[in-house]
């Protein structure tokens, strides 16, 4: 169990750094939802299943949707080549 926690924490911290360093905003958004999903798995391990469900649905789902719609409106929704 503790190795699973270690792996999840390392993945979360790496993608949190990637959120700030990636030039592509779409990729940064994907890294942000990786952080949210890792957090919801950690909440299951911490024996808080209701919080994990809310985090997965609202933290990863709804806020990513909000960010995606806002990026489209801001004109930042493009791949690097385009």
């Amino acid at each position, binding site marked *: 169990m503790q190795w699973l926690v*270690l792996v999840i924490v390392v993945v979360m911290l790496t993608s*949190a750094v990637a959120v*700030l360093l990636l030039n592509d905003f779409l990729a940064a958004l994907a890294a*942000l939802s990786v952080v949210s999903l890792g957090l919801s798995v950690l909440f299951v391990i911490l*024996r808080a*299943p209701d919080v994990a469900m*809310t985090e997965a649905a609202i933290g990863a789902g709804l*806020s990513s949707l909000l960010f995606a719609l*806002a990026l489209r409106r*801001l004109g930042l929704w493009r791949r690097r080549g385009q």
Partner: protein
Amino acid sequence: MLDTGLVLYSGAFGLILIGIAGIVLSSHLVRIIFGVALLEAGANLLLLLATWHEGAAAPIIVAGRVPDRMADPVPQALVLTAIVIGVGILALALSLALRVQRAYGTLDMHEVRRRMEQDIAGEAGIDLPSSSHAPAAVQTARQEGGA
């Protein structure tokens, strides 16, 4: 060998630190909002860790039987609320970013701040505030611009 609590606490503090670094160091408004989201995630994890202990049971009462060593449900309810409020904060921040881009045409915070100071000084009819320690060339340029 590795303490699970230590790993979890370092993850929470790491997320908080990375979020603060994103807010303070980046100049793009969307990246600042990304930093706020990271900070929120770290704060939620820290709040939930505050009363967790190794080998705790989930705070679910089945058939009227309370588990022996269950995790405290109060911070869990608070974190549940904080997650939902966090989405509201993100929506507000993103809508403000949309308004900033519509007003100034840019999302770079240095440019936005310069334009806002110009607008405020222009509305009040005063010179742009400048430091007395600024280089002499900048000060004369500002005085000539104001005169």
